């Protein structure tokens, strides 16, 4: 007899025996039904909730800053750069929270596992989003000087210093684009990405690996 045939027959015989011999413990079932523990993925829920709260506070503050400095184009641009970035982080947090809260285990396996791995990669999303602010670091300097010293650093700054900031921004933009591309879950097998992802925690690295595996599997 073919090996697979033997395997199938053994499995079918097991099925019959299971039907006869397994009994469900009603007492234990009641205990499980009483448990409303939502322990699973609690950490991600905490991280995403915290991010959304911080993001909303920061966005509100930046909006207030922009409205208060409408007449000054330097403040307006610097504030807008930070506002866009904080909105991006907040929206990412809300999206991840929504994914977590609407996770339905009765949906198809590939869908649910993909969603679970994306939630596992939320740290990576925040890291990638953080890179986007790198070329706009000067916006923080401008806003910081205005907030703490009431000084418009662009107006008071030396021209050479301002040019050097511009050069730095361009260099940071190149670096940010490179790292942003490298930090994609699709590059999980590349050495640099592996190091960067492991820096986000093994969970993120494993989630990236599994997401790739799932993509290949569903093809």
């Amino acid at each position: 007899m073919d090996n697979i045939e033997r395997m199938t027959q053994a499995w079918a015989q097991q099925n019959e025996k299971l039907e006869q011999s397994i009994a469900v413990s009603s007492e234990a079932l009641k205990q499980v039904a009483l448990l409303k523990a939502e322990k699973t993925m609690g950490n991600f829920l905490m991280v995403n909730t915290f991010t959304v709260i911080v993001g909303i506070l920061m966005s509100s503050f930046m909006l207030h800053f922009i409205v208060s400095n409408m007449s000054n184009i330097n403040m307006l641009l610097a504030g807008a750069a930070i506002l866009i970035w904080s909105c991006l982080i907040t929206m990412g947090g809300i999206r991840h929270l929504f994914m977590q809260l609407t996770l339905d285990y009765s949906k198809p396996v590939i869908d649910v596992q993909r969603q679970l791995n994306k939630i596992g990669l939320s740290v990576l999303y925040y890291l990638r989003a953080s890179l986007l602010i790198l070329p706009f670091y000067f916006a923080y300097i401008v806003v910081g000087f205005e907030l703490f010293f009431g000084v418009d650093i662009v107006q008071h700054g030396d021209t050479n210093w301002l040019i050097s900031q511009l050069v730095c921004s361009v260099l940071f933009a190149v670096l940010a684009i490179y790292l942003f591309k490298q930090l994609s879950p699709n590059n999980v097998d590349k050495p640099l990405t592996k190091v960067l992802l492991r820096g986000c925690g093994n969970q993120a690295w494993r989630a990236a690996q599994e997401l790739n595996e799932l993509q290949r599997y569903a093809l």
Partner: protein
Amino acid sequence: MSSHNEPLTFEAMIATHKGILYKIARSYSYCDEERRDLIQEITLQLWRSFAQYDPKFKLSTWVYRVALNTAISFLRRDSLRKAHIELTDMSLLTEPVDSANTELMLEVERLLKVLNKYDRALFIMHLDGLDYAQIADVLDISASNVSTKISRIKQRLNTLFIGDDNG
């Protein structure tokens, strides 16, 4: 088991599909403690999702989805596993009595564990007699993909059988 006129109770659903729970838990766990824990976790997940069950879908397909999703996630969450062991001291399902084909079944389970977690899910359903369309529905891949994967898995398992026979 509930009649057509009565609403399906959670207990009746578990009683009807206890075999699926047990087989999936066995195939995705590596010791008795893990198996008991996984059965509890699948039951808990079924209970959480039960209120949203839409009767227009086949109940067994729904149970496979929840059970497989829980089992695959269970494999991933090493650290969280321990927390769930404390849920209840009691076993939800009694162990089946020893059968004549235990040795062969152990071999079947060993071979299933050689497969990756998605192939394992697919082949369990194939062994359970689900057709390609049903398997495709549980996993969300095409029926032709299921067919290709099953023939690849069979080839692989046959090689493993041959390897074992030679070894």
